[in-house]
């Protein structure tokens, strides 16, 4: 394998209801930095049916080149068909690095492609860098259940691959009208060559929990002691008009459902206010909320790592503090309302 043949940084671009989800745009931002440092092109890979028009957006967010596989067989994401397209593209054009969102689709596709190439794949990366001289990708992620960070390298194989967490990297501001090179590709693949069929797609619109979209999150941890104690989190969230978040051990204990879990194996969130109650602050939790606007921690243990990650901390008993906070907050807000009415 001659490494000189492998050049450029690629981002697999996802598509959802005719749009590019933010994770792919974030990856273009991260990929741009790597490509610039290395002095190479940034390319996006689009696979889908009637997907070519999205290339313009990919250029506006930083790509120099877009590879497009626009065929009816790619109407729905399926591992086998998408994998064949990506393998085709990689074998033909030989990138040095391919990035995927650490989404269900991105992880599914990356795992399959890495096995077939074969090459190394780093999962759920939260930091990316590249060695300017060698092109070696430095992919870092929380490891061992999120207790520490590890930097993973793939020295002997190309391309190097990583899946990257959503909401960790920053998208560039789009440059309207920015353009680049579109390279149209196709593969000969018949429906009967593919062993899976998507029979139906069911959208669940009923009260879906989307804590990643909330402005205010009140999150609770094992420090609350019991499912009953955890109710305190719901009460404060209700009062503040926020969503409820949770640490991993609380979710595993069954106090609340997984969509509420913040952190490495849950959701990455960036609310304007994040209040952590009874959460000790393991690294795997911190990586999921550290970019929040205002972080407040309430914990009995003054040594808890969460206090290193917060803007304001209260060392104390949540069962004493939070009820007072709820009462005072309601009072304060009512006062605000009254004054507001008077102004009118």
């Amino acid at each position, binding site marked *: 394998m001659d490494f000189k043949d492998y050049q450029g940084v690629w981002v697999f671009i996802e598509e959802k209801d005719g749009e590019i989800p933010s994770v792919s745009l974030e990856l273009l931002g991260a990929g741009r930095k790597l490509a610039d440092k290395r002095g190479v092109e940034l390319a996006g890979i689009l696979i889908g049916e009637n997907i070519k028009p999205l290339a313009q957006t990919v250029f506006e967010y930083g790509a120099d080149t877009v590879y497009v596989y626009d065929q009816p067989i790619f109407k729905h994401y399926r591992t086998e068909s998408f994998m064949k397209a990506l393998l085709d593209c990689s074998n033909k054009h030989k990138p040095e690095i391919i990035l995927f969102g650490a989404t269900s689709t991105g992880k599914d596709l990356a795992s399959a492609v*890495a096995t077939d190439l074969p090459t190394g794949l780093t999962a759920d990366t939260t930091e990316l860098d590249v060695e300017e001289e060698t092109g070696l990708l430095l992919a870092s992620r929380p490891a061992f259940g999120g207790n*520490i960070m590890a930097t993973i390298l793939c020295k002997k194989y190309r391309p190097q691959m990583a899946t990257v967490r959503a909401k960790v990297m920053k998208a560039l501001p789009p440059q309207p009208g920015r353009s680049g090179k579109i390279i149209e590709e196709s593969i000969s693949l018949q429906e009967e060559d593919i062993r899976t069929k998507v029979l139906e797609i069911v959208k669940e619109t009923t009260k879906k929990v989307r804590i990643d979209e909330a402005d205010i999150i009140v999150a609770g941890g094992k420090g609350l002691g019991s499912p009953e104690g955890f109710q305190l989190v719901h009460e404060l969230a209700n009062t503040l008009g926020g969503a409820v978040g949770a640490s991993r051990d609380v979710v595993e204990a069954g106090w609340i459902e997984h969509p509420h879990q913040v952190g490495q194996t849950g959701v990455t969130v960036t609310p304007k206010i994040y209040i952590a109650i009874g959460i000790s602050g393991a690294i795997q939790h911190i990586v999921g909320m550290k970019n929040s606007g205002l972080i407040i921690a309430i914990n009995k243990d003054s040594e808890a790592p969460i206090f290193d990650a917060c803007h304001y901390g209260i060392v104390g008993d949540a069962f004493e503090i939070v009820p007072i906070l709820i009462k005072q907050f309601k009072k*304060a807000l009512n006062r605000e309302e009254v004054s507001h009415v008077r102004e009118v």
Partner: protein
Amino acid sequence: MLHIVACIKQVPDTKIIKMNPKTNTMDRRTAPAILNPYDAHAVEEAVRIRDKYGGTVSVVTMGPPPAVKAIKKCIEIGADEGYLITDRRFAGADTLATSYAVTKAIEKISKIKPVDLIICGKMTIDGDTGQVGPGIARRLDIPPLTSVNKVVEVNQEEGYAVVHRKLEDGYEVVQSSLPCLFSVEKTINEVPYSPFPNMLKAARYQPHIWSVDDLEDVDIMQLGLKGSPTIVSKVWAPPKPQGGEILEGSSQDQVEKLLAVLLEKKELFQAKEGV
């Protein structure tokens, strides 16, 4: 009769494990070894499918000899047979080398009895990747179905299965030919307490134990550390953030200070009130 293979792993309980602050390594003595919690759901689903359609559930794992304990746990859940592949030459494997070794074990198991379906947990709690399941499927050249949260039908006679795959905003109903591989979500089932006869059986059960030499057509270069394209170059504790301002005083004082901070962002709350 179906033959279902569940792939499992014994892991340190990462919730309990303590780090050595000097070396930044895990002190494995501090953590009990358990069956990876996600894999318990994989085994449970295999058992349910077997109970519905008839057949056999085998579990397979790669790990050190004490991993027998994790296999026994699977027998408690209801698995029929267990296979442990254990050898120093497997050590240091990343996801690519792991999927290679486990595939070799499954190939051997399928010579004993052809395999119709493979089920994996979503991921392990120590590796946190979810990459081994799809890797095994690719190596066996069978369709991988990840994020499975419901098994609708497994039809051995006509050679297909129908499942729900979880999506970010719902799910998709997918049909696949058999054999295929599912990686299942935790939400797919609840693992009940094991019935007493299973526990008795597990206590007496001795799994099949194979070394590299017991497997066939193995390329040693693809095993363990040698067969792993990825290496951990550096393990580090992230730089400690500066830390915040600790609000001192009585509970009443603390709350008042906190309230002042929150009310600096009162536009957030008023927007809500306005709705």
